[in-house]
Each structure stands twice: as structure tokens, then as C-alpha cells.
């Protein structure tokens, strides 16, 4: 069966510090991968998505970046965190099939607080 891992579960970082969040998927190959951010009590904002290794689409301008160095690994990074980067970061995967919008499976998330 497929599983998705995210770490760390919680993170407190000072403004201006770097960030690296990692997401890995097991039990499937060539998945679509997604990074979302959820502010407290708000909806899901799609940040990045990837349909293959090295293929990253950015949805909103920001000081975050994403990389997909391996098929089932998705990394969210920042060189310098801002206060507004605080939130709940969710990684998700879906089956990759051309023309399809398949259900997405979410990881447990990382709660990031920038102080």
C-alpha cells in the first residue's frame, strides 16, 4: 500500500533562517506531487506541483522554492523565512495519468511557526 511521509511534524524557526521540508512517498511510482500551505482556519493554497523528476510548476510568487531530486521525493525550501511563511504545510500525491484529476492523498503536514 502507498504511504506518504512528511517531516518534521512541527518547526519553530526565526525570521531570516533557511527552511527545508521533506516529503517522500512509498508504494507507487511516478506520482504527481504537490505542496500546499494552509493558514490557520483557512483553505488550501497550492504552492508547487510536479508531474515528474525535475519538473516543478510554481503557483504563487513567494520566497519559497521546491525541488524533486528523486521520483518519490519532494522538497520545499526557503533561503530566508518571513513571518508570513508561518502555516501548516501539506504534501500530497496523486496517480499520474494524462488528462485525469485523480484523488490526492495528503501527508500528516508540518506546522511551521516563524518568530
Amino acid at each position: 500500500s502507498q504511504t506518504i511521509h512528511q517531516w518534521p511534524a512541527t518547526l519553530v524557526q526565526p525570521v531570516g533562517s533557511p527552511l527545508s521540508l521533506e516529503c517522500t512517498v512509498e508504494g507507487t511510482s511516478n506520482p504527481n506531487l504537490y505542496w500546499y500551505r494552509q493558514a490557520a482556519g483557512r483553505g488550501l493554497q497550492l504552492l508547487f506541483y510536479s508531474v515528474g523528476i525535475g519538473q516543478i510548476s510554481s503557483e504563487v510568487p513567494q520566497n519559497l522554492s521546491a525541488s524533486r531530486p528523486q521520483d518519490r521525493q519532494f522538497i520545499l525550501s526557503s533561503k530566508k523565512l518571513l513571518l508570513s511563511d508561518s502555516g501548516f504545510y501539506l504534501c500530497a500525491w496523486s496517480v499520474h495519468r494524462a488528462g485525469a484529476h485523480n484523488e490526492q492523498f495528503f501527508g500528516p503536514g508540518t506546522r511551521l511557526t516563524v518568530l
Partner: protein
Amino acid sequence: GQQVMQIPQYQHVQEGEDFTTYCNSSTTLSNIQWYKQRPGGHPVFLIQLVKSGEVKKQKRLTFQFGEAKKNSSLHITATQTTDVGTYFCAAGIEKWSASNTGKLIFGQGTTLQVKP
């Protein structure tokens, strides 16, 4: 960009009452999905609707996709405390391209609170 509007933002009901959340788009959708996020948790897939006018049921939950494929609703009959959480609709846009394959547009969610 495309948006999916979801209303209401919050709903407080007495246990046993019904609950409905609505999702609307200005553009035709290829499909609509519904997710539930429990407090402190992550979204979990509930169902996908694809066909115009489609209706699906899961126990006390009824999901509908509009005839024009621009709106959808989730109705819960006789709510229970276990129904507490935020319900999101997520839309797959009609015009697919290689650059947006798999991408969903999430509504802002409806947070349901149930008083026992």
C-alpha cells in the same frame, strides 16, 4: 485565475440537524472532489463526481454535481459529533493541458461544528 467559491464558511448545528455546503465555479469543471479535514488533521478524500447531474451517497452524506458541471453540494443528514471538521470541495478544471494535469483548485472550505 480560476476560483472555486464555497459557502458557508462556518456552520454551527445542533446534533441531529442537517448540514449543507455548496461549491460554485464560473467555469465548467471536469470533475469535483470532496475532502474532509478533522481538527488538527490533514484532508482526507471522500468522493469524486464526474458526470453531469451525478448524485452519490455515502451513508448520511449525499453529494451532487450540477447539470452544467459548475456547482456541487454536500449534504449531511442528521449530523453527529463525528461529522465535525472542515469540508473542502476541489475542482479539476475542464480544459486539460500537460501543464495542469492532476491539478485541483480547492474551495476555502466549510467548517462544521456540531453541538451535542
